């Protein structure tokens, strides 16, 4: 069977090569045909914005689509440069890169945000190709643009939805953490309050007095640590703030925030790290991913006899690897397939939104990191691989 498959694949590859050459010959000969050229241009005129400029970028020809989409009349465009539709959304480096490419005889492609005569912005996917003179130097330029405003609007709306989902997930995890954190703060507060009540009793015993003051200081430090881990969640803006981070610091904070839940379900959470590399990340977002994974792990093992989570991090070449292993027996094949799908949850109705892992993966993809369920482990094991922070970013 393998031999037959190999022969079949070889035949397919040979076929594609032969057919590809024939196709190329056909295209070359077709383009020499003026009728075909005209048909191609007519078709382009129907679906795209087509403009010709001279070698200085002054518009010499525009098609109807350009006028219809931009709202400018032909006479308002011809004789001008494309500055007439410049929205100001792109910096000078963007256009310098364009000129550098096309002036050297290469085509240049980009998505450009332009401005209509009404002031409204629109988006075009642009290809600019130089038309070369006999000496091979650009003589004029052909620009073909496709209106992708609807697509861009859809992308923007998707981004807005993602930010909204992220915010909701943040509130959901905050809500879950709130009860636990209150408990974690109330205990040291009880120590401070009780010890302070007793201080007058030890006014003549300096050793005991010193020891009780130290108890109060320890309790204050515990509260300060919890508040510090929460402080990041109070950031009100939605902009990602990326910086060089130690994964150990992020894990430590996530453990502080999930400590109450772990304790409530008698789950031992351990963290071991041999990683010395840093990652480039938005600390809040990565902490959110970890809080999510830890909370999921605690929920997953709460009916097990052994209840533990082992978090470990280590360096693996150009990656910082983080593993979250729980004492659970792993996930069913069906769950594994749907694990990262939005709204998929193994928790009982009302106990999970199912947004956690899908959002976690989205966040990690934004960080060029990956998350996967490691196969072949006796326990449930999630592995996250972050790219090591690059030197130039460290310099920043």
């Amino acid at each position, binding site marked *: 069977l393998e031999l037959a498959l190999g022969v079949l694949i070889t035949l397919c590859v040979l076929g594609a090569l032969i057919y590809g050459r024939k196709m190329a010959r056909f295209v070359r000969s077709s383009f020499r045909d003026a009728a075909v050229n005209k048909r191609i241009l007519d078709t382009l005129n129907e679906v795209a914005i087509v403009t010709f400029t001279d070698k200085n970028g002054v518009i010499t020809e525009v098609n109807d689509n350009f006028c219809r989409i931009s709202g400018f009349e032909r006479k308002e465009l011809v004789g001008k440069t494309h500055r007439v539709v410049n929205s100001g959304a792109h910096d000078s480096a963007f256009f310098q890169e364009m000129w550098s490419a096309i002036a050297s005889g290469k085509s240049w492609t980009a998505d450009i945000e332009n401005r209509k005569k009404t002031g409204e912005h629109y988006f075009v996917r642009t290809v600019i190709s130089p038309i070369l003179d006999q000496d091979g130097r650009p003589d004029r330029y052909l620009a073909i643009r496709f209106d992708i405003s609807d697509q861009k609007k859809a992308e923007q709306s998707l981004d807005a939805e993602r930010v909204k989902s992220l915010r909701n997930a943040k509130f959901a995890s905050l809500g879950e953490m709130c009860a636990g954190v209150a408990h974690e703060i*109330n205990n040291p507060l009880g120590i401070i*309050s*009780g010890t302070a*009540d007793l201080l007058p009793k030890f006014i003549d015993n300096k050793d005991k007095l010193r020891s009780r003051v130290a108890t109060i200081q320890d309790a204050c430090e515990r509260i300060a640590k919890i508040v510090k881990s929460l402080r990041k969640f109070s950031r009100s803006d939605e902009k990602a703030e990326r910086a060089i981070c130690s994964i150990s610091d992020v894990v430590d904070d996530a453990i502080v925030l999930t400590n109450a839940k772990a304790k409530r379900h008698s789950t031992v959470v351990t963290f071991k790290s041999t990683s010395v590399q840093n990652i480039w990340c938005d600390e809040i977002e990565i902490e959110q991913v970890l809080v999510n994974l830890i909370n999921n792990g605690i929920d997953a093992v709460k009916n097990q006899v052994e209840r533990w989570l082992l978090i470990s991090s280590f360096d693996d070449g150009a990656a910082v690897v983080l593993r979250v292993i729980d004492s659970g027996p792993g996930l069913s094949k069906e769950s594994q397939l749907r694990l990262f799908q939005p709204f998929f949850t193994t928790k009982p109705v009302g106990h999970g939104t199912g947004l956690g892992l899908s959002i976690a993966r989205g966040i990690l993809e934004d960080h060029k990191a990956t998350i996967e369920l490691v196969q072949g482990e006796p326990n449930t094991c999630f592995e996250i691989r972050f790219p090591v922070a690059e030197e130039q970013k460290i310099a920043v």
Partner: protein
Amino acid sequence: LQFKIVYLDDEEALCQIFEDNFDWPELSVKTFVDAEAAIQEIAEHSADLMFIDYRLKGTTADQVSKRLPANLPLVLLTGELNPMPETQFLRIFNKPFRLKELEQFLNDAIREKASSSNIQK
């Protein structure tokens, strides 16, 4: 006759506070950070009252209470945000509690025990 109290809390500092404050001659106070040790103490020497923290190392006050004599009055101490059901607890004190509150409660309990002893005599 001393009023015997067992205090179970995984916070050593809270146990210390309890011992420091309730060094009254009419009280016998034993504190524990380990639930098993507290359960054993009560099984061997009994107690008049037990203060118990809700979240303990590896267990909860609910679970511990099931292993204690049914007639032992239990007082729950909790830092939980959500109100706890009072079913098996005589009284619930929320952390951070003031020692005055506990003192008042204990005085009432001692007085109640003394009066019931007098009635029995």
